[in-house]
């Protein structure tokens, strides 16, 4: 099924869906996402009732449970104008699978599912396709080399082959290198890694061999679940290389003292924006419900 059309998210309040794993395991990545979104002038709120998108149940065939969690998501994000999430996989769940989980006969729920699908953006997609930004006016304090690992759902579910690379290419002091088989799965696959651990590990070994052979010091990806798999293997294998989420890499550029003196570039044309966004007022959907 074709993805529901989205309107431009320009100027709209961003409801951050931070994802369950970022919330519990990688809260710093969540803060990096907020920092970058605010850096480009977005007003960010965190709907506090949010939990998970339901993908673990959906991917295991438990659709009733996935629908139950999706219904909770609808409630948590009922006031959202735009949803941004730092995960190609969760974004794929919201964009592709929510409309499939409910049928037109489900009435309001089906409408809600289509609505969520039509306002959701993956983090890099929001910046590059949504706002038309590639140069975020960021620079790392020290030169560092990177290579992209294309997380599967972002790449093939959402077609995000370029967005993160375009952003990294404009990041000051960042050098972009090749990673062999960057488009091949790391072997995570959610519960696949637990149900078929030996196969998952074989896929991981292949990924790690490629990472260790890459000239890049750091691997960048758009999903912390894949990152967990890869770093788990790199750490066990005593490799000194690590995988970082794109938002964390970009956020390192924020700490550069040179930040905030010029304007971000909207694919060529200048875009005026505030240097620092106003604090989020303690009202509206950012509040506990």
């Amino acid at each position, binding site marked *: 099924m074709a993805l529901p059309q989205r309107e431009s998210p320009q100027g709209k309040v961003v409801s951050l869906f*931070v994802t*369950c794993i*970022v*919330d*519990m*395991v*990688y*809260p710093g990545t*969540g*803060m990096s996402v907020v920092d970058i979104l605010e850096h480009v002038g977005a007003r960010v709120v*965190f709907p*506090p*009732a949010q*939990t*998970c998108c*339901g993908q673990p*149940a959906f*991917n*295991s*065939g*438990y659709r009733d*449970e996935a629908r*139950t*969690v999706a*219904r*909770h998501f609808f409630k*948590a994000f009922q006031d959202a104008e735009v949803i941004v999430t730092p995960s190609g996989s969760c974004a794929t769940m919201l964009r592709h699978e929510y409309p499939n989980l409910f049928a037109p006969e489900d009435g309001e729920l089906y409408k809600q599912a289509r609505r969520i699908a039509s306002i959701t953006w993956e983090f890099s997609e929001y910046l590059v396709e949504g706002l038309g930004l590639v140069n975020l006016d960021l620079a790392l304090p020290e030169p560092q080399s990177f290579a992209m690992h294309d997380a*599967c*759902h972002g790449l*093939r*579910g959402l077609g995000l082959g370029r967005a993160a690379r375009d952003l990294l290419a404009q990041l000051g002091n960042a050098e972009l290198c090749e990673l062999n088989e960057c488009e*091949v*799965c790391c*072997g*995570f*696959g*959610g519960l*696949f*890694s*637990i*149900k*078929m*651990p*030996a*196969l*998952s*590990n*074989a*896929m*991981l070994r*292949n990924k790690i061999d490629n990472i260790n052979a890459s000239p890049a010091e750091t691997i960048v990806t758009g999903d912390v679940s894949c990152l*967990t*798999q890869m*770093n*788990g*293997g790199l*750490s*066990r294998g005593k490799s000194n290389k690590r995988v970082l989420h794109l938002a964390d890499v970009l956020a390192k550029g924020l700490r550069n003292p040179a930040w905030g003196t010029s304007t971000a570039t909207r694919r060529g044309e200048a875009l005026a924006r505030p240097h620092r966004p106003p*604090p989020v007022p*303690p009202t509206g959907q950012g509040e506990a419900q």
Partner: protein
Amino acid sequence: MSVELRSNDFVSLADIALRNPDLQKAVGSGTRGGYHNRAKAMFEFGDAHGETMRAQAAEAKRRALRKLPELLELAEDRLLENGWGVEWAEDAASANQLVLDIARRHSVKTVTKSKSMLSEELGVNQDLEAAGLRVVETDLGEYIIQLNNETPSHVVAPVMHMTKAEIRDVFVRELDMQPTDDAEAMVAFARRRLRQDFLGADMGISGGNFLIAETGSIGLVMNEGNGRLCTSMPRVHIALVGIEKIVETVADYAMLTQVLPRSATGQPLSVYTNILSGPRRAHEADGPEHCYVILVDNGRSKIYDTDYAEALACIRCGACQNACPVYRSAGGHAYGWVYGGPIGAVLTPLLVGLDNAAPLPHASSLCGSCKQVCPVDIDLPRMLLDLRHDLVQSGESAAGWDVAMQLWAVGMTSPTRFALGGRAARAGQALLGDYMPGPLGNWSEFRDFPAFAPKPFRQLWKERNNDHA
């Protein structure tokens, strides 16, 4: 007799493959070679051209499937007009019996065979041999497989799982070949042996890549020419064709012969592209005297009536196998039946029953590479997800998961329970250290797990906004 079914042993069969370094090397390089060659060939005239070819191929196969009943009737009429005998087989036993009946009718003793995945499904060789006939596989890969008493592990490259040294050993052991590591010498050796079999065969059996309805002919593509020798030299030719192989027109066939070899091996065209249109005519110097098409169902019409009908569009190019990281590690035999890789993970449960192939829908990380390379755009990840849902619905899902998923859903429908769960996980982690309980131990066997954060994001967010206020 149909082929042995071990799909429920997928995990242990995959473990065997993972521990076989020769297989890992052979399948790893074979699949990657196929994958890269396909990408080059498919898009040699640009991305738009390649995607247009895919769209046209998908349309041709889907149109044929939509019109399947009427096209099958048309094909039968046209085949009969061309002098083919036409038989219909509901299952493997009846198909093999028809082959045997034809062989007996024409006093056949020796049979040469060209490559056919359907014949693997039917186990026709075993039945013919049990009846006292000699059957020789003539595709080089299938020949090696037959000598080694194995089954093909890949739909296009049957010996994908073997190294050159292993093949040499088979030839030395079974055919007294003078040991050599020269691949060309090995091929030349097999060629000389096979030549004798071609000359002596009474009957040839082929598959059919396509059944062209409007002309009543079989479309057959191959690289070695063995298929031509099987279908033109013996007195009798039988084509075993699955009912889903139908296409409407010769133009469709011409279209599909562009994407099939590109997707399979990266060739713009197969070395031999044939249209077989029946027995030798009165004025013709050669060709078989008797030609038969056996149209085989063997579970296909059952799939046709479900949401999985699209799987019948498969043209057996093997691109999904080459692209699949699970297949690259597990090899084809792990799937426990005829078809490996993503298409096998979908077709096997549909053809042999979900309870006989329960692990296969889970034999995927859902990375989506299979769908991306499929020349007829079959949504394999979607079907794997649907099959997983069917497993849950039919109670075939592994024990424990039902309760776990219900509990999980309870936890995920309240931010309070969610936060409590996070705290419990962190406490558990502090208590257990690197040891992870239950199925989570499958994770920590190979990988370290990161520490749960002392403060979840929702708390950091609250604190930050309090600072702002």
